[in-house]
């Protein structure tokens, strides 16, 4: 889009590791890949879920707010992730890709009005890592205390947890399986290196 806007100056937290992550990709039956999805729009939303305001927000979002831990709701390009009993994270594609659209936070702030609650654009707070492939679950299981077996965790589930020592919001997107990990930007570099290291064994034959 704009050649001179602030978008041309920004750098994603994992831009320096792009090459390393690409080289770490494993193909085949034990394949797993790691990529960054930079600059996703993230809006932190807090509102009492039993209030009238929550109803207005749900209309603006086009989907009901998930009410239980791990639940997500999708509405067009947006996904709403549960963060707490009165807190959600609204994810949508990078803003400049949809410049014709009203910024996400503005629409939600209008719906909130002057009622108790908050709508804050926190896009720079976290970055998004996508870990995908048949071995993705095994990579995460090296350092994630959650039960990621399909009987307990599946597509459309998102939970706050830790991977290694890093706190992340872990969201499973599909059955590949593909996971999206949302760490704080300042922890992203460490987490990406941790994942690249955890992925390295899958490029060699399985040790019985």
């Amino acid at each position, binding site marked *: 889009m704009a050649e001179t806007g602030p978008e041309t100056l920004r750098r994603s937290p994992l831009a320096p590791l792009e090459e390393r992550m690409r080289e770490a990709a494993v193909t085949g039956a034990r394949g797993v890949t790691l990529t960054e999805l930079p600059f996703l729009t993230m809006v932190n939303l807090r509102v009492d879920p039993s209030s009238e305001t929550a109803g207005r927000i749900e209309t603006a979002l086009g989907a009901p707010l998930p009410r239980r*831990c791990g639940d997500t709701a999708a509405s067009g390009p947006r996904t709403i992730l549960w*963060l*707490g*009993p009165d*807190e959600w994270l609204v994810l949508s594609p990078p803003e400049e890709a949809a410049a014709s659209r009203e910024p996400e936070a503005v629409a939600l702030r209008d719906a909130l009005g002057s009622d108790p609650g908050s709508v804050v654009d926190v896009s720079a707070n976290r970055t998004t890592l996508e870990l995908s492939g048949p071995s993705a679950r095994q990579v995460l299981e090296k350092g994630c*205390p959650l039960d990621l077996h399909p009987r307990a965790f599946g597509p459309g589930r998102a*939970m*706050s*947890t*830790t991977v290694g020592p890093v*706190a992340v919001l872990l969201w499973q997107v599909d059955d590949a399986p593909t996971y999206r990990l949302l760490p704080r930007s300042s922890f992203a570099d460490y987490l990406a290196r941790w994942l690249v290291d955890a992925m390295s064994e899958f490029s060699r034959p399985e040790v019985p």
Partner: protein
Amino acid sequence: MLLITCPWCGPRDETEYHYGGQAHVPHPETPAALSDEQWAAYVFYRDNPKGPFAERWMHGTGCRRWFNVLRDTATHEVLTTYRLDEPRPGGTR
């Protein structure tokens, strides 16, 4: 490692939580009227029972909410967890 059941997120490892000390310690209604001894008792003096103890915990890497845990200090068994707006199960405090 303790396995603590967050009232909102379900069972998670102890490493996801922060400890917040004894629960059900009410803030004095008129702090200015307290003597130094009474203030010190409110700020520093806590129960130290052998057995069930109600304490506050916060789910730091999860929903980031405070809640109460009833834990046996002798066996480390987590007896129950409950929200801040719920009374202590089994009465007392």
